[in-house]
């Protein structure tokens, strides 16, 4: 047993001291923290005001584009060619041209811009035009918006987890996502560290030190020490990742004043909706998701990770052993 421990500590120390281990341990959490923090941070940044010039030849949309915090709409009456010229000369950055269209088959609408327009901006323009045309068509067909709205039903099923005795709201979507991420992490760790065992064996075989080692210890002890040592490296890395991710996320949150608990604006494309703010239900939903993320049972997740990591790792080890004994 003492020998196993000796081998284990060598395998562990040699790997933990490697530059690649240190780099990976530091970069991993930075990446995770980056993934969680950066979008939130970005969306909290003040967005430069955009001005969209609209040349509306139908005259139907004049009052329909509502200015928001970030986007201002100005209707122009000048000639299309002159307006286009203005765009290319940077006088007016964006131009929406709505020609005289057939409402049954609206086509020919063009957006001119001197840079690549953002997805959300074009989407906004599209949805405004769409809803306005729908409105007009509704009117023409003699239907009332109220009737249509009344026909729509929205069903929400609340899922409550009763397994721990207390009623706990759960979120199927978030639980699935956490499951997927966990599965990916387990998969990654098993394969990465499984490969490490193989590489260790290859190193010993090519350098021929294996002959010296197996004339000192039993092959089983060598393999056991190796597997446990490398497994311990994996768990160390996982632990450090978890710890560093928490530390970095927290400190970044403080540093940039980002409040994670708040639904970050911008996670949805609804931010630039013509009516300005997020609708009440959207806000609630985002809140719910965040609540669900924070209410996951992380102790259970970590224990499950360790369990599956070790399980998978040892099954892989059996495979390696087969190769070993085929030598």
């Amino acid at each position, binding site marked *: 047993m003492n020998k196993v421990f*000796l081998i284990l500590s060598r395998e562990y120390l*040699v790997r933990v001291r490697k530059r690649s281990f240190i780099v990976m341990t530091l970069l991993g959490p930075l990446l995770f923290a980056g993934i969680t923090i950066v979008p939130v941070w970005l969306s909290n940044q003040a967005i430069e005001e955009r001005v969209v010039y609209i040349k509306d030849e139908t005259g139907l949309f004049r009052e329909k584009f509502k200015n928001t915090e970030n986007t201002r709409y100005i209707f122009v009456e000048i000639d299309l060619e002159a307006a286009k010229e203005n765009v290319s000369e940077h006088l007016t950055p964006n131009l929406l041209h709505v020609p005289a269209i057939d409402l049954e088959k609206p086509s020919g609408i063009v957006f001119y811009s001197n840079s690549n327009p953002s997805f959300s901006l074009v989407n906004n323009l599209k949805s405004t035009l769409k809803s306005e045309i729908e409105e007009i068509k509704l009117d023409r067909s003699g239907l009332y918006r109220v009737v249509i709205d009344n026909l729509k039903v929205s069903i929400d099923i609340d899922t409550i987890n009763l397994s721990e005795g207390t009623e706990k709201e759960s979120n199927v979507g978030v639980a699935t996502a956490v499951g997927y991420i966990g599965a990916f992490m387990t998969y990654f760790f098993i394969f990465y560290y499984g490969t490490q065992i193989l590489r260790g064996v290859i190193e*010993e075989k090519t*350098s*021929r030190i294996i002959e*010296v*080692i197996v*004339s*000192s210890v039993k092959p089983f002890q060598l393999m056991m020490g190796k597997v446990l040592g490398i497994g311990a490296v994996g768990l160390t890395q996982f632990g450090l990742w978890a710890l560093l991710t928490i530390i970095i996320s927290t400190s970044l949150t403080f540093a940039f004043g980002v409040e994670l608990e708040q639904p970050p604006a911008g996670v949805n494309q609804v931010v630039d909706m013509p009516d300005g703010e997020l609708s009440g239900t959207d806000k609630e939903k985002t809140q719910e998701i965040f609540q669900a993320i924070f209410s996951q049972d992380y102790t259970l997740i970590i224990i499950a990770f360790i369990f599956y990591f070790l399980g998978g790792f040892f099954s892989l080890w059996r495979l390696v052993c087969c190769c070993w004994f085929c030598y």
Partner: protein
Amino acid sequence: MEALIAKNITKEFIGHTTLDDVSIYVPEGSIYGLLGPNGAGKTTLIRIITQIIAADAGEVFLADKKMAPSDIFRIGYLPEERGLYKKMKVGEQLLYLARLKGVPKTDAIRKISLWLNKLDLEQWWDKNIQDLSKGMQQKIQFIATIMADPQLLILDEPFTGFDPINANVIKDEILQLRDEGATIIFSTHRMESVEELCDHIALLNKSRKILEGSKQEIKDAFRSNTFSVEHHGEIGELPEGFEMCSSNSNGVGTFKSEIKISNGAGGNDLLKCIIEKVEVISFIEKIPTMNEIFISKVNEG
């Protein structure tokens, strides 16, 4: 008493018999040379003794007891193809290998510094193995092999890669270990080191043992009763039973002759006979070198 006996060892690899009923008897406290041309099965035999691979048939006894897996700690093995962990420090690595052999930590540290000092490597303690020259790596591996004071040392080609000075240092260490009571099995192609070091030898060829015994016995067995004589003047006709093989003059009246005795007479009889005829400067029995024995036996087999 024998330190190690390998009895009737047979090992087959797919389609090829590497060892065919080979037995060796290694006397305690001797340096035992395991000789043979390439591919004779020397390394396979050593791997069977060190339990790296198992024999198909046959048994190995260490100090008269059938070898058990735990006996491996009493053997020090220096493989032919050397290897160390390249990215480990010298001291760390030696400590690790010593502790794997069961040497307690404090003892191991003391011994490592002693040996590193002895072989002039003390300033390399904290350097990575990959920064060392090949010769230095060999020395480190030699230290790793002998650090646990093994009863039986198996050295596979211990001198390859060493310059003559370092080869001498290692040779002296091997002799000293023998004097301290260790038994050494020593596999090599280099006949001059066999001549110098070995007390006993076994010769393997084509998977079989073709010769075994003490160096002296073997040399005696291969004596051809030929004498090399240096003398002034020509010997001329020799009596019955003495046969002149060759006689060459060096130009200033000195001759070098080889005379074979074929009738069972001794060296003294030959000397008496020629002393009457010429002035003898030197008179030496021609004893075959290990190299000659090796070549003749291998060619014969």
